[in-house]
């Protein structure tokens, strides 16, 4: 049965698009049929991160408004053939999306894929609400700092109020993905600890993605980090998170600061 999963955060720039691409690719690498859908109409990014920007013809709005068929708009990944992208329009704005249109697209995607991953725009307005509207579960992205965590708390409230599942009285499954976790800074107490964030948000933890240059490196070459360098720390963290999404019990590793300390020692010597 298809799972519609929204990747959302409230706050901007915390890693929604990065995570959508990485989790989508990780699930597809495991043989699942995956469609990643860019809901960030007007600020589309997912096509770049997926390296598909030069193949975009039709987009979500075209399909939602009946101007194009789903097949015409879906872009198949060049590396994994069970991974598809439904891009956003860069020239329209979020008002061009209607709830009925989105529902039709999601329903059609449900018939073809195991996972439909919706990359939400930042904010709590219409765009973000449409991205979560038909979701079965949510991945809430937060960075370990107070403003991001409070925005995530806000989004969790919306997930429990504004989604179709919530309105039907069903529970909305929510998972926390803590991204850009910097073990050194956490060790110095400059960031919220994992426990702090979990205590505040009180939803289950899906994974902790370390802050890493690998993420930027991967996005520069238009590749989800799990595909670009599967051995890197962020890729391994995303691959584990994808396994947990599929119900596997994978031990959670909190990125330690040990390596960070060594790094700093070497950095000093070199200087």
């Amino acid at each position, binding site marked *: 049965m298809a799972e519609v999963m929204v990747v959302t955060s409230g706050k901007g720039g915390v890693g929604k698009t990065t995570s959508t691409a990485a989790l989508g690719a990780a699930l597809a690498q495991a043989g699942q049929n995956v469609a990643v859908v860019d809901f960030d109409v007007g600020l589309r990014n997912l096509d770049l991160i997926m390296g598909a920007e030069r193949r975009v013809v039709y987009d979500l709005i075209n399909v939602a408004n009946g101007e194009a068929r789903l097949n015409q708009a879906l872009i198949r990944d060049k590396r994994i053939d069970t991974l598809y992208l439904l891009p956003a329009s860069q020239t329209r704005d979020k008002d061009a999306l209607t709830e009925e249109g989105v529902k039709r697209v999601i329903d059609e995607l449900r018939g073809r894929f195991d996972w439909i991953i919706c990359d939400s725009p930042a904010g*709590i307005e219409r765009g973000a609400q449409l991205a979560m509207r038909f979701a079965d579960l949510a991945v809430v992205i937060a960075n370990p700092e107070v403003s991001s965590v*409070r925005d995530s*708390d806000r989004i969790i*409230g919306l997930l429990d109020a504004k989604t179709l599942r919530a309105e039907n009285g069903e529970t909305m499954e929510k998972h926390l993905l803590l991204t850009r976790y910097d073990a050194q800074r956490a060790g110095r107490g400059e960031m919220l600890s994992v426990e702090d964030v979990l*205590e*505040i948000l*009180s939803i289950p933890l899906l994974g902790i993605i370390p802050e890493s240059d690998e993420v930027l490196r991967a996005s520069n070459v238009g590749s989800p980090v799990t595909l670009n360098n599967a051995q890197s720390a962020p890729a391994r963290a995303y691959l584990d998170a994808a396994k947990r999404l599929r119900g596997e019990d994978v031990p959670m590793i909190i990125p330690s600061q040990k390596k960070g300390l060594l790094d700093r020692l070497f950095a000093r010597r070199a200087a």
Partner: protein
Amino acid sequence: MKQASARPRLCGKLNGKLLKTYRILSKIFGFKASLTTRRPDWDTPSKASQPVIQTPPTRAIRFRGRSFQALALCPEAPFDDWLKDVDAWLERSPGFFGGKPLVLDVTGRECNAEALSHLVKAFAARDIRLLGVEGADAALARAELPPFLSAGKAANFIDMAPVVAAAPEPPAPQGLIIEAPVRSGQSIVHPEGDVTIIGSIGSGAEVIAGGSIHVYGALRGRALAGAYGNPRARIFCRKLECELLAIDGLYKVADEIDAEWRKKPAMAWLENDSVKIKSFD
């Protein structure tokens, strides 16, 4: 919300409870004045047993019922002689009337429109402002005169009186139990009684209750207890990290809360018009 619901209480209190304690009679000069604006039930000595923290003064921006103990001035005929006595009194204690609520009580006095206006003007000339006139014939009421208070009824508030009369009996307190965290941006409003949260109140979330608020979790957002006029309401939480606490419209923001109480189980209540906090550790 506060203003709208509390406004009728303003005259409700004035109507019923304008306390008359000291009568200045022209012949009695040697009495001890100890005026208070507190409600009598707050003057109980119980506060000594409770820890009282030093905090900056609580700002109060609100409308709420308040009963004052007013000085009732009872002029005696001939009024001009009586006014001379008042002057003598003022000479000995200049500024005695300053800032105190004063009522001119002419009950049982021969006081026609002219005499009344003369008295009121005489007080104005002495820089003494009157809160109201008591015991005068209602027919003498004029716009330029202070409000007429008769048997605790303020004639000027007559248009508001129906509001007071129509105010329904407060419904039997009803508790509301919320079995989930209150998330940032959410607002729980429950005028009917207590609110119990099984979970935390997130930063940027608020709970507004007519009664007390119980938080079986961390209180990181705002809790407004007794928000519809109940100074006896309290706030309890397992972990105090709040942005704002308010009881009966009086509030404290995080900045005004001593670090000593933070992150601990705590209770907040109202005492002497300020929000007090104590920890359960």
